[in-house]
C-alpha cells in the first residue's frame, strides 16, 4: 500500500539581498522504505516564482529530510534541502518547523532560514492523506 498527502510550508530565508519569502505546496506519494516522491510548486522570489519542483522526502525515526530541485527564473538550477528532527520534548515545534537551505545545483548556498507548517493548514493536511492500494 502506498500513501499520498499534500503539504504546504512557508518561511523567510536570509539571502545576500535580505530576507526573502519562500513557500512550497507539494504532493508526496509512495512511502516504501520511508521514501516519498515529491512534486508541486515552489515560489522563492526573486529566484523563482511558482516554479515546478520535484524531489524526495526521506523519513526515518530521527529525521524527515526534504530534497527538492527547481529551475530559477534566471535559468539556473537550484536545490532546496531541509530537515525536520522530531523531538519528544517539542513534538509540535519539531514537526512544524525546519531549517532550509537553497543552493545552486552543485554550487554555493544562496539562502537559508526557517520554514514552518502553519497549524491552520492542519485540517487540509490531514484530509489530504490517502491510502493507495495496488501496485
Amino acid at each position, binding site marked *: 500500500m502506498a500513501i499520498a498527502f499534500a503539504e504546504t510550508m*512557508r518561511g*523567510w530565508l536570509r539571502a545576500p539581498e535580505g*530576507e*526573502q*519569502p*519562500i*513557500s*512550497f*505546496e507539494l504532493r508526496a506519494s509512495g512511502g516504501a522504505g520511508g521514501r516519498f516522491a515529491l512534486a508541486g*510548486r*515552489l*515560489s*522563492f*522570489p*526573486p529566484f523563482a*516564482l*511558482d516554479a515546478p519542483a520535484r524531489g524526495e522526502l526521506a523519513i526515518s525515526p530521527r529525521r524527515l529530510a526534504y530534497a527538492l530541485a527547481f529551475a530559477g*527564473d534566471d535559468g539556473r538550477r537550484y536545490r532546496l534541502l531541509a530537515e525536520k528532527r522530531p523531538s519528544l520534548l517539542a513534538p509540535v515545534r519539531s514537526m512544524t518547523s525546519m531549517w532550509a537551505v537553497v543552493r545552486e545545483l552543485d554550487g554555493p548556498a544562496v539562502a537559508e532560514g526557517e520554514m514552518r507548517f*502553519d497549524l*491552520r493548514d492542519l485540517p487540509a493536511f490531514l484530509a489530504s492523506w490517502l491510502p493507495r492500494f495496488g501496485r
Partner: protein
Amino acid sequence: MLTLPKAMPALPSMRLLPFPAPAQRAPNALRYEGRPGHVESWFWRANDPDRPRALWLKVTILAPLSGPALAESWFVWFDGEKRRLLGHRTTVPFSEASFGAGAEPRLLAAGFDIETSPIGRARGALRASFGEAAFDLSVAPERSPIAEPLALLRGKALREGPFPRSKLLTPLPAARLSGSVTLPDGPVAIDGWPGMQGHNWGREHAFEYAWGQCLFPRAGGAPEAMLEGFTGRVCVAGRRTPWMSALVVRRGEEELRFDRLLDFWRQRSEVGGERWTLALRGPDGEARLRMEAAGRPTACLGYRNPDGRLSYCFNSKLAEVRLQLQPRRGGAFELYSEHGGALELLRREPGPAAGIEPI
C-alpha cells in the same frame, strides 16, 4: 484572501460603537457641510512608467474653526532626472470656488477645473514663482479589478462616523492619465501614464502618518497589482495612541487585506525621515513593505489644520517600493517599483525640513 467584488465592498459595520453606522456615500461625494472645522481634499497622481517623473494635483477645502473657509489647488511636478521639483499652491476664498454636488462633483477651485467622474477631465493653469504651468488631462480607470474603489478603513462606521477624525478613500486606485502638462521649459506628453485618485476629509489632518500607494504593471505572466497602506497615530484626550497600520494589496482578481488596526502584536512599522517600513501578519498571510524616497525630489507641503496649527507633509511620488508577500493561499511573491511609489509622511514638526518654507 478575497476575490474582488465588482462594486464598493459592503463591509460589516462595527456594531459595538455607540453610534449607528451612517449611510454609505459615493466615494467622491462632497463631505463639507459648511460648518467650521473641516478639511477635505481630492488628489490625482500620474507616474511616467519609464522614467522618474510624476505629476501630483490636489484640490482642498479648509474650513477653519474661526474665519472664512478657503479653497486651494496644489500642483507638484517631480523630476528625478533633473533632480527638480516644481510646486505651487493657490489659495482663494471658498466662496470663489465650486465643489458641486452629487456622487461625482466637478471641482472648480483656484485655477483648476476637475471632473471626478470615472472618466473625467482635469484642466488647470497656475502662475507660480517658478513660472507658468498648465495641464489638460483625461482620467480613465484602469480596465482591471484592481481599479475598484478602495477603503483602507474597514466598516462604514469607521469610514463615515466620527472616529477616526480623518478619513481616506481611494475612489480610483488605478487609472490612466493622458494629455499634456506644460511647464516653463515646454510641454510634456502624458501618454497613458498610470496613476490614481484619492479623497480625504475630516475635522483635522491625522496627527502623524505615513501613507503609500503604488501600481505595478503586468510582468512576466504575473497580473497587474497595486498596494495602498498607512501607518498612523492619533491623539486621544491629548495622548498619542500607538502606531496603527493597514495595508491592502490587489493582484489581478485577488485582494489581500491587512487591516486589523488594533492588532498591535502582528504589526511592526518604522516611520523615518524619508522611509517607511511595515511588517504585518493577518488571516491573509504576511506582508513586508519598504518605501524609500531618500535622494529623490520630495516636496514639503504645509497642511493647515482648522485650529491654525501647521502639519508638515513630506511628499514624494518617486519612491522606491519593495513589497514581499507570503499569502495564506498561494505562493510567495514580491512586487518592486524603482520609482513609482507615492510616499507621504506627515508630522507636526518640520523635522528634516526645518528651515525649508513649505509649499
